């Protein structure tokens, strides 16, 4: 049996977002930290639990992925931004810290472009969505499905517990195919966002970019594109970590925690700015 994706203390709830049943996991208390996951969440969310020690961690599942309901009309970043603004309203979230990984990094950057005043701090983790000079590297549709798990990580043992024992597990294959279809609505005709670079100057909130040095999905050269476009950007890379840098590097998880804790109400009150 594959490992549990959302172990305790994660709590699951279903929120009706403008008619779409949206699954939201949460853990911890404190100021809200929203995490936008990548194009699949089968590898689990245990990596984020350390953040729940300090924050109210909110982990929504993107429509059309994994167990979430789908809305086939969602086919642009804009659709996701509006979906999440509706969700934030439903959850009563005003200001947030926002972390986005891969596909979720692209969505987080888009949301922050439009609603910068709500995003106190932004972390982009190996974000997808820009046209790298190394294309077709970074075109997710060219990755052979059977090789995908091993390409995602530096050390295969990281994700092995989440893979089914039988590689021909039909439910697993079906779920991955569903993710592919959702992604195809966004990125098949153009596997990058040509407009986003024009807007990234709007990311004036403190922003951290992190990357796994062994990223085989989105090569680290892609970081340059983000660094050039975002005015004030901190940048950190992590060794012995692939695309799934948060799953593979506790240092990366800690670095995010440290960055997000800066300027928090807690640290402001205690003057404990590190």
């Amino acid at each position, binding site marked *: 049996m594959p490992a549990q994706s959302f172990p305790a203390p994660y709590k699951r709830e279903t929120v009706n977002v403008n008619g779409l049943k949206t699954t939201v996991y949460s853990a911890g208390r404190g100021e809200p930290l929203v995490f936008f996951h990548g194009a699949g969440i089968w590898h689990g969310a245990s990596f984020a639990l350390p953040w729940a020690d300090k924050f109210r961690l909110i982990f929504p599942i993107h429509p059309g992925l994994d167990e979430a309901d789908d809305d086939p009309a969602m*086919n642009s970043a804009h659709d996701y931004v509006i979906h999440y603004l509706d969700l934030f309203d439903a959850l009563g979230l005003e200001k947030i810290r926002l972390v986005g990984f891969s596909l979720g990094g692209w969505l987080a950057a888009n949301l922050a472009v439009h609603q910068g005043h709500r995003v106190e701090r932004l972390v982009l983790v190996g974000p997808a969505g820009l046209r790298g000079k190394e294309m077709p590297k970074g075109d997710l*549709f060219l990755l*052979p*499905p059977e090789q995908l798990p091993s390409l995602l990580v530096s050390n295969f043992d990281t994700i092995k517990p989440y893979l089914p024992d039988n590689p*021909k597990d*039909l*439910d697993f*294959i*079906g*779920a991955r*195919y*569903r993710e*592919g*279809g*959702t*992604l*195809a*609505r966004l990125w*098949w*005709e153009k596997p990058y966002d040509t407009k986003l670079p024009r807007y990234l100057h709007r990311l004036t909130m403190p922003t951290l970019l992190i990357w796994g040095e062994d990223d085989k999905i989105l090569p680290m050269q892609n970081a340059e594109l983000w660094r050039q476009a975002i005015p004030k950007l901190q940048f950190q890379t992590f060794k012995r970590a692939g695309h799934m840098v948060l799953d593979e590097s506790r240092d990366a998880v800690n670095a995010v925690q440290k960055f997000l804790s800066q300027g928090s109400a807690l640290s402001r009150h205690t003057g404990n700015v590190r």
Partner: protein
Amino acid sequence: MSGAVRFDFMHFMPYIHLPENQKDFPSLWVDFPNKFYDPKRGVELYQRYLTELITAEKVGFDAVVVNEHHNTAYSMMAAPNLIAAAIIPQTKKAKICVWGTPPNLEYPNRLAEEYAMLDVMSEGRLEVAFPLGTGMEYWANPISPATARARHRESIDIILKCWTLDGPTTYYGDFYTYRYLNPWPRPYQKPYPPCYIVGTGSQETIDLAAQLGFGYSSVFVTKERALELNQTLRKRAAENGHHMRPEQLPLQVITYVAETKEKAEQEAIEHIRFFFEDALRTTPTFLGPPGYLSVAELKKRAALADKLHGGFNFDAINEAWFIAVGTADQVVEQLEEWGGKMGTNHYNLLAAIGNMPHWKVVKNLHLIGQDVIPRVRARATAKHRVAAE
């Protein structure tokens, strides 16, 4: 069964001069390197294949069928309308069936125009099909598989409007905007040429044919599955107020006739083997690009792919698929049996199989024309007469 017996000859026009190491390539589609295409040998093949198509009319076939595929040695017909245009002046009566260009791969107004041109050029001999296009076409063309079905429906809607509404008119759709929809020329046949949907049996495609009242041909499915699809289609068509006529249900059969059963098998099997093992060889990823299939359909196919594993076995394939290889008598019997079960009198014969040499194709066409077609026709007429009395 009403309506006249009809025999079609379908050609795929494969590029057959493959490199010796072709088995090393998991797919002869999408990414099979085009450096292996030699235009000089292409000249010979086009000339040869056109001759075969024209021969079919001469020996008694009622129609010739061409279709479209991209990036593949399986077919040299990236633009089947060009082939249709080459056949028209060299034939007199045969229906010219373009089954067809996937509407998603061309602007719908232009496809409506091209088909209208062919229909006028042939004095109303055109028949068309509107395939969604295989998964492989979506890897080769800049169109999203995830919105393929919605685009397909809109494209067909536009084409039918082109053919039925007096222009200029307008179209404001999800995918296409036309401020002046006014295509010239218009089809020769009224309201428009006979239309079919061809597909491998997904529910969405069946429903589309049923709703539009189009003919439907299942391709590359087993006998068992074809019968199942046939039942579903009739039921769904009836629910939509359409009665499927026998001629609307072309039955695709791999056919080879020779003097004896042994000889037929000896001459045909290696090419049937090539067809299944090589020409059709591709990867599950190319067959089902993301969003192209429903998740349920993908799982069904993934389960099936495992069962089919184990390589080519003629007896098994012969048993499972519509394959008629034998003497004229045996082939007549098989066609009649399957036609009866499927409720059709419209046979679409794949009589140029895989990498079959020219002489075998010509011999096959002549034997079918001489000994199969007239017999099936005569027996159908006799049956009809008995039924009428």
